[in-house]
């Protein structure tokens, strides 16, 4: 089930050769269950780092990240990515090249019994409109189709939160416009809490319920 996301006073930094570099500081936001939030800002503003911290790829230097009732990260707590129930759609899709579209979608369903896995994969493929393409390999799919498989794969295990990292940046303008509407409809139908990261304002307007403007590692505005 989708859950509410809460970030309190988060600080993120990376270790360089000459000490610690702070990338994000004093970052707080809250997003109700079922809502779509968007972090909008130029490249290098720290929005992708925030996303990676929610996914569990970056340790927190300070602050807290909560999802529903669960504490995901703090300066002392770090739940491993596979235990967070957070799904992610990557900028380059990150489809496994050695698996078919259906096997990609089913990758995170190993704990379900076989028949349920098959049913869920079929359901997700139908949801993204690619019911016929399950047997194809990623390189046999168009960019837009790969993107939809990546979405189906991220949604299949019913994550409590879905993260989307510049999900439309590799598509041509026409496909992008069509898919933003489609993806929003799919997320809304599923009641999915989601956080989107982009530098494209039109995309943010079309997709999100709330838009946060980011600048130099800080949230400068959060609109309802």
């Amino acid at each position, binding site marked *: 089930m989708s859950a509410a996301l809460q970030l309190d006073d988060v600080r993120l930094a990376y270790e360089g050769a000459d000490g610690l570099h702070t990338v994000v500081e004093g970052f707080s936001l809250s997003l109700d269950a079922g809502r779509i939030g968007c972090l909008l800002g130029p490249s290098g503003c720290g929005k992708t780092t925030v996303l990676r911290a929610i*996914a*569990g790829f970056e340790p927190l230097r300070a602050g807290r990240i909560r999802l529903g009732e669960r504490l995901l990260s703090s300066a002392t707590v770090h739940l491993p990515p*596979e235990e967070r129930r957070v*799904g992610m759609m*990557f900028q380059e899709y990150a489809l*496994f090249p050695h698996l078919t579209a259906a096997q990609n979608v089913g990758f*995170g369903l190993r704990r379900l019994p076989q028949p349920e896995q098959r049913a869920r994969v079929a359901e997700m493929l139908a949801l993204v409109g690619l019911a016929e393409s399950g047997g194809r390999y990623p390189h046999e799919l168009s960019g837009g189709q790969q993107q939809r498989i990546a979405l189906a794969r991220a949604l299949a295990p019913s994550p409590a939160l879905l993260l989307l990292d510049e999900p439309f940046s590799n598509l041509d303008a026409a496909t992008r416009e069509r898919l933003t509407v489609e993806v929003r409809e799919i997320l809304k139908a599923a009641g999915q809490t989601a956080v989107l990261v982009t530098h494209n304002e039109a995309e943010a307007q079309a997709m999100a319920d709330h838009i946060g403007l980011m600048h130099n590692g800080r949230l400068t505005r959060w609109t309802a």
Partner: protein
Amino acid sequence: MKPVGPVWRAASILIALGVLAPVLSLAWLAFGADLSHWTHLARHVLPQAALNTALLLAGVGVLVLLVGTGCAWLVTVCDFPGRRVLHWALLLPLAMPTYIVAFAYLDLLHPIGPVQGAIRWALGFDSPRQFRLPDLRSMPGAILVLGFVLYPYVYMTARAMFMTQPAHLMEAARTLGENAAGAFFRIALPLARPALAVGLSLALLETLNDIGASEFLGIQTLTVAVYTTWITRSDLAGAAQIACAMLVVVVALVLLERHGRRHQRFGSAQRMRAIEPRRLHGAAAWLACIAATLPVAIGFVAPALYLLWETAKRLRLGGGISDGLLASLGNTLALAAGVTLTTVAAGLVVAWAVRSQGSTTNRARWQARAATLGYALPGTVLAIGLLTPALGLDSLLAGLLRREGLPLMSAGIVLVVACAIRFLAMPVGGIEAGLARIPPALEQASRLLGESAAGTLRRVHLPLLRPAIAAGALLVFVDAMKELPATLLLRPANFDTLATWLYAEAARGTYEEGAIAALAIVAAGLLPVMLLARNGLGAHVEELPN
């Protein structure tokens, strides 16, 4: 991302320590033991063996540089009949182990053998007493034999370098008044110097590793001295002392190689229009063709044809294949399979642990360096170094199992470990390169879909690494089949591989089934050369350790 689990890291550190164990044990043996041996060895064995080794290394070094660089340049800047075939055929001698080429030429060039007989017939002599070529069993003979099978190491690195050198640099030199030769010596050669250093050090490490060719040709090198000091005089401390002297040479060669690799990056940084070969005509074209064919003919075609001919003769005479030879073939395959499994598994652990710790951290780099050090250790040095720890473990185990004898040694486990140490660099290099090509997002996607680190390795990385693992396994398998010096010293009693079978026959001077054993080894050795030729000349160079 959470760092690698403690089990992986411990396994990786253990492997690195295992590789270092023989070196440490050598130092302890050589300096901790009875130093009175030093005087005997210092007076009677070391000076001559060291001088021979130095001469051999110097001679082979000059020859491989001349032949390897010359052929690489010829194939890069000139177009002549046969160039397309020679481009990869020049690699063929890599399939020919040094002890086999020496074995073949000893018979081919024997005073009453086919070559000298033909020359006498042509000149009208009828007795070896009237005419004979200088004896192959000499320092020049050994240099020629080793040089013509080891030049591909230089050819390979030089060719890869020349292929990526931008043409406009050469053209600039020409407009500044240099002729073609001047441009080569002032531009192309200095730019290729780091690559040549890498190829040269690899060829010289092979020279140092060689035991069969120098022994057959009667050159008492340090390697041969280690072997005889231990086998015939049972003097382990003495053998360890000579092995330590060899380690000094090894360290120098590895430093040369590392130096070359550090500077190689600048050379290939700019990717510009490559040098276009110029079409040669008439006599020049044929001269170029002959010049580039000669090394292949000497280093591969002639000995291979000899082995084929001898094998055919033997089989036609109804001799068949003896049970002993068949048993050696089975032993060889079993040994190679065991070594391949061990080495690939260890390589996977090291490469994965290093990647997960972040390959830029000092500790990870140190581990990878230590684990892949073995390629530089000559087989005899490695074997002598392993003997003490292995014998210690064996007596411990025998005590625990309440059994007589040497359980690890007699099961061949020590031999498998020695080969695995020597060949670990190949799969580690290949798997590291393969891992680097897998985008980190795939790993992150898998973790977010609920898969653990180990599960991600199994379900995502292993399937994607299959080509890299297969290539590494093939290289290790073939090298284990060919391995002679460590096998001679560490094999269980009455255990013969094709290589030791051949060695025994050549040492006895009986040329019975040696050719069949040699032919099997060369045929297997052709597989990685084909892989190398198909993947382009640069690929193998990158797979070697950094």
